[in-house]
Structures are given as C-alpha cells and as structure tokens.
C-alpha cells in the first residue's frame, strides 16, 4: 500500500493546483501494484504524464467521459489497446526520459508562474511508494470508456487498392466501396471527397474510425490542380475545429474531424515518382501527415522494390517533401532512433486483400495466383504488417498528436495572424489581439 510522505513538494501557483490529488486518495486507488515494477515506473513516467497534463491546460481540450462521442486522450503517453506492449515500451524509454523530463518540467512550469521556486524529487529519493503512477491506470480507464477518434484519408488513382487496403488494415468493411449499396467503379469527372464513419471495438476500447476517400484524383487526362479540393477539405476541418475552440461557450468535447493521416498511393511502376505525386505531396505534406505507400506491390521483385524505394526517397528529399514521421518532430533521441528505422523503410510496399487461403494448414490473408500465394501479413512477402504496426499499433496516438500540436497549431497561428480576423464574427466579444502568445493567455483565462 502507499504511505503518505512528506517528501512531496507543494507546487504553488494556480497552474499546478488542479493536478495535485490528496495523497490519501492516491493510496486508495493504487491498482496493479504488484504487477508493475515500480522502481522503473516512478516519477519519470509519472512526471512525463504530468508534463503532458500541463500541456493540456494551455490547449483547450477537455477530457470528459460523459459524452458518448469519444474524445481522444490528450496526454504525453501513448495508450494502446494492448497493455503489455506499452509497458514494455515504457520500460525501455525510462532512463532516457528521466533526464529529459526534468528539464521539460522546469521549462513548462516556470514561464507561467514567474519567480516560483521549485524542487524536483526523484523517485529514487522517496523513502516509500506514493502511488502517483496509478494515475496512468486512471487515465487508461477513462480513455477506454471514452474511446478514440481517428480520421484517415486515402488518396490515389482509381484502382490502386485503396478501399481494399483500408478494409484489410481494420479487418472490417470500412471503405466507401463496401458500404454503399449502389457503388459503381466509374471514374468521376471531378475530385469529390466522401467520408464514411464506423465504430470499431476491440478489447473494450472503442474507436470511431472515419475513412475519407478521394475518388477522381489523378484519373483525368488533365489533372492540373486536382489536389485543390483535398487541400480545401483539410483546411476546412482545421477551420471547423478552430471556430469551436474560439467560442465563448465551448463544447466539452470538440468533435475532431481533422485528418490525422493521409495515405498516398504510389503505383508500382518501379521507376520514380511521377510529377503528380510530387505536386500532391509537396502541397499536402505541409498541412497533414502523409504516409506514402507503394500500391499493388506484388508486381515488383524484392530487388526492384528496394531500388524503387531508394529512388522515391531521393525524389522526396530533392523536392523538400517531409512525410510522416517527420524528422523535425522527433521528441527525443529514443524516438529518433525508432523513427529513423521507419524512415529508412518508407514508402511501405503493400498488398491488400480480404480473401483467405490455406497455406501450410493455416488460414492466411492472401492473393492466390498461378505461381503462388502472396501472404499479405507475411513480412517476407510485403510490408503490409509494417504499415499496420506503424499506423495502428505504435504511432496512432502520435499521428493524432502531430496533427493537433503541429499541423493544427500552424493553421491556427496563420489564421489568427491574418489581420482581417474579427472575433465578433465568430460570436465572441471583442478581445484585443496583439500577437500569438497574447492570444494564448486569453484562452487560458477562459478556463
């Protein structure tokens, strides 16, 4: 059980007072104590949690479990559907994070409350177990109840297997093709965006998945500016969110329709990027996280695939295109190493299918041809599993964070700096808008 200890410093100031929970209460909520190696889980992880929570105060995203519409968890810790994986990952990153977090905390807290003296007590200095880490479990419970929202956009020419890939990723018929009863495989004359939402549940975790399809992209003879409707859509979602955020009476949970991830399908020609690929990714790479994939990769041998990928990476670098995971957003060396490994491997060469076949007595997802069966989830055959792991199992929360903290913030700053913006237009009382930071303080006081 936890002891109450006098070692906890009181962090004065209005900022931190919301977070401190009376120690007694903590002791009562310690769960899974014995299963957690708490020497590794003391303050660093918790402090990280706090720093994440602190970040959330300066960003007006509330966490409320009452609304049925799930809200994404705003914190610095990835929450996965598989608990064991996460704990493993956390143990690895502990030592690195410890050092980083201290400085992070100092810099987070001090500017808001100038002149504050603060001391940090490390877990190894405590002479007992407090149980602060139990907050993690509390958060996990909350988010399990609340669920997640995830919006994924698929872009590419007709017939590249977009619908099939999305269905295979989420192991259910979530694409527009599977949902529309009168779906016809016709090439539309203009680029129209369609979105379809589904509620998926796995091990008690609910996810509201929205798939945004872009039929007509790149299918015409003249494809000039075919990316414009897509740019417009992405910005419209940011605008919607911004307006909600700036209201006086804000919703407790702002519905998040922003595009968290855009999968761009490159046809497996084996040569290089085409002009349309470059033009699209140049423009969209600045406002959304793009994950390029090589579609229908079962027409490339392993050697051809490697050469193709290398040339694509060269073309991306030459054109200044930053795809996800972007190098400049790596938060710490640990993450950098992990993301470097991913960056060396993109774009992933994928094959998708919803059909199963028997291979060596097992039922596998695959494509059956006269010369063999291509197993979609076999990493020796194609990189579908790598893509799935990236998108869902390891970086799902990160995709959302990057969208919220970086892309959305960039949009927001740009919009608010546009001189013509009149707050009264948005239904608010006039607030003097001096500069970006001044605005932030205003929204803080709204809390």
């Amino acid at each position, binding site marked *: 059980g936890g002891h109450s200890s006098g070692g906890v410093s009181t962090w004065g100031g209005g900022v931190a007072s919301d977070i401190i929970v009376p120690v007694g209460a903590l002791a009562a909520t310690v769960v899974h104590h014995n299963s957690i190696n708490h020497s590794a889980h003391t303050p660093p992880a918790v402090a990280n949690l706090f720093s994440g929570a602190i970040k959330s105060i300066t960003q007006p995203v509330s966490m409320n479990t009452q609304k049925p519409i799930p809200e994404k968890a705003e914190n610095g810790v990835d929450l996965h559907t598989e608990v064991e994986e996460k704990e493993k990952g956390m143990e690895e990153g502990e030592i690195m994070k410890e050092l980083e977090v201290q400085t992070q905390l100092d810099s987070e807290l001090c500017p808001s409350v100038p002149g504050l003296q603060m001391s940090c007590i490390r877990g190894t200095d405590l002479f007992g177990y407090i149980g602060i880490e139990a907050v993690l479990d509390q958060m996990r419970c909350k988010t399990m109840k609340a669920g997640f929202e995830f919006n994924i956009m698929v872009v590419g020419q007709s017939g590249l297997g977009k619908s099939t890939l999305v269905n295979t990723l989420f192991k259910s018929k979530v694409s527009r093709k599977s949902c529309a009863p009168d779906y016809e495989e016709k090439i539309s004359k203009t680029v129209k965006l369609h979105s379809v939402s589904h509620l998926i549940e796995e091990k008690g975790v609910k996810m509201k998945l929205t798939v945004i399809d872009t039929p007509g992209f790149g299918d015409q003879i003249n494809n000039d500016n075919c990316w414009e409707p897509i740019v417009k859509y992405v910005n419209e979602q940011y605008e919607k969110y911004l307006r909600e955020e700036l209201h006086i009476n804000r919703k407790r949970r702002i519905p998040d329709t922003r595009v968290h991830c855009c999968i761009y399908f490159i046809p497996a020609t084996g040569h290089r990027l085409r002009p349309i690929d470059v033009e699209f990714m140049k423009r969209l790479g600045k406002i959304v996280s793009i994950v390029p994939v090589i579609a229908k990769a079962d027409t490339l041998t392993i050697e051809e695939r490697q050469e193709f990928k290398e*040339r694509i990476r060269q073309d991306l670098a030459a054109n200044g295109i930053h795809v996800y995971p972007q190098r400049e957003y790596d938060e710490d060396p640990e993450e950098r190493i992990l993301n470097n490994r991913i960056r060396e491997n993109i774009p992933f060469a994928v094959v998708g299918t919803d059909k199963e076949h028997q291979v060596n007595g097992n039922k596998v997802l695959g494509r059956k*041809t006269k010369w063999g069966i291509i197993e979609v989830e076999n990493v020796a055959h194609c990189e579908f599993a790598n893509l799935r792991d990236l998108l869902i199992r390891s970086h799902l929360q990160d995709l959302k964070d990057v969208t919220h903290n970086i892309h959305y913030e960039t949009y927001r700053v740009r919009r608010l700096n546009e001189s013509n913006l009149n707050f009264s237009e948005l239904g608010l009382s006039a607030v003097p808008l001096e500069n970006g930071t001044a605005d932030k303080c205003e929204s803080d006081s709204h809390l």
Partner: protein
Amino acid sequence: MTSNIRYKSRIPVKTEDSTEEKQYVGFATLPNQVHRKSVKKGFDFTLMVAGESGMGKSTLVNSLFLTDLYKDRKLLNAEERINQTVEIIKHTVDIEEKGVKLKLTIVDTPGFGDAVNNNQCWKPITDYIDQQFEQYFRDESGLNRKNIQDNRVHCCLYFIPPFGHGLRPVDVEFMKALHEKVNIIPLIAKADCLTPNEIKKLKDRIREEIDKFGIKVYQFPECDSDEDEEFKQLDKELKECTPFAVIGSNTVVEARGQRVRGRLYPWGIVEVENQSHCDFVKLRNMLIRSHMHDLKDVTCDVHYENYRAQCIQEMTSKLAQDNRMESPIPILPLSTPDVDTEKLIKMKDEELKRMQEMLTKMQQQMHDKDQ
C-alpha cells in the same frame, strides 16, 4: 483483301494418269518462289510501343525479340520529369534467324501520359505516324522508286495499366486518335499483379469499353474455310483472349529444373513463356509468327490508302481553290527531303511548266488563226 501467305508447299500429285501430268502447268510453285526471294531480300517491320512510364514496355520488347535494346537508358528523376514532353525515339536492330533477315524498328514514346496535364499528349505520336505516311507518299509518287524506305508504323502496342478498373480517359482518347492511322493492339501490362479472376474481369471490361467507345483495334483476319480444325480452334482462342495480359522479363531464372525467362518473387516464380501464367506466348506468336505480314498488309492497304485518299482530296480541293495548274508531283510540306531529288523535281517541274505554257501559247495561236 489480306491473304495469309503460309508457306505450305504444294507438291504436285503424281499419278499414273498422264493426262493429269499434261494438265499440270506448274505455277503452284509460285509461293515458294516468293518465299525464296523474300528470304533473300529480308523483311522490315516497324513496331511502336506506347503507354505510361513503368508499364514494362522496354522489358516486353526485349523479351519478344530476345535482345537488350535499352542497355544505356537513363531514367529521368522526378524533377526532370515535370518538364518532360513526349518524344519519339527509334531503335533499329537487325535480327537474323535461319537465314531470314528482319530489320526491326522499335518506335518508343517516352513521356506519354506522364505529366500532370496530359492534354493532347498523343499529338506528337499522331504527327509522327502522319509524317511517315507523307514521306512514303512522296517517295511513291517520286521518280526514283527503287529504294523506297518503308518507315510506316505497322503496329502499335498500347499498354493499359493493370491497376485500373478498365480503360481510363487517356486510354480512350489515345486509341481513338490513332485507330484509323495504325493497327492498335491493346495489352494489359504487368499482369503479374492480377489473379486469374481479376484478369478475366478486366479483359471483359476492356472489350466492353472498346465496343462502347467505337475504338477500332486490330482485328485478326477470319480463318479461311479450308483451314484445318486445329488452326481454327487456335484462332478462336486467340481472339477470345484479347486484350493480351502480358508479363516481360529481362532475367533468366531457374524454375522446375529449367532455365526460363521469368521473375523471381518470394512467393513463387512467374514464367514469361508459361501459357497459364500470362499471354506472352500468344502475343509473340501472333505478332511475329503468324500475323506480321497481315499487319503490314493492313497498314499498306487500309491505313496508308486512307491517308493517301485523304491527302489527295485535300490537295485537289486546295488547288482548285487556288486555281493553279495541277502538278503531277505532290508538293507537300515535308521535313527534310533529299536535296538531290528536290533539285531534280524542281527541274522537271519547271520543264513541265514551260511545256504547258508552250502548249497554251500554241492553242492560243491556233485559236487566233481560226478567228
């Protein structure tokens, strides 16, 4: 109008009856004579390949003719591609097999369909084909016809991507722009990314759309009624298999104990010449072994004649408008005609003009005299 010259030798039936022998003239050996002459002279064939980058055109050409025509090719990077226009590149190679010489010309069309805006991207190609017709027309009407070079395009292989659900707008427009100028044979490229079911669906879809849009692709000639059943059956199968789903390969792999042209994947080996894997063999047989001559004939008799008729019509209407005297030699804006022939033609033209003038003068004089 096209005759399949198949070199079945007709051995005269020797009978005991001497009357039969007397009635035998012997011109049945003509095909053999033609055969011998052709072998001496050699054949030429011009094949055009069109389609987007990365469809496997070069690989297929190499596989068809068992050569490596594209050894020193350099792929443009994405930046260079943005400003790329459609080019026409010719590769010529002389192939000899069993004493028969073939001068093969491959006309490549890099840049086709690669840009963001592909409006009229087929224009350089149609212009090229027209130019070859013009040149032939000129040569044919010229004075020195001994060594006419036939650069007309006999066949155009069009590569349809396997990724789509049928024909795309650019495919339809391209084929419609060219179907009355050249024999188009549509192919489904990179067919190793399709399962047998998908291939069948795609072929049906494409055939449907070709009918719907009124595209006149190359039609195999009907079998003569006196052909044997086996041939007829093969012919029927061939026709039902279009468009051919092809796979090409520059590499040789080991499969089932043999060395074959193929592609090695982690999940299996695709053999290019295996009929159950793809239609490569059918294409090769059709293109080279059975229908090469027919393709040339159709080019000469149909496409070229259409062009020529159109050209002459335009000329006569133009000349009638200008009220000029008709010149027997066509005066066309051509790229670079031979300087000597040009001079010769000019000379003759002037001579003819003078003669015409003299004639009208004489006529006038006679008319005056009468009066």
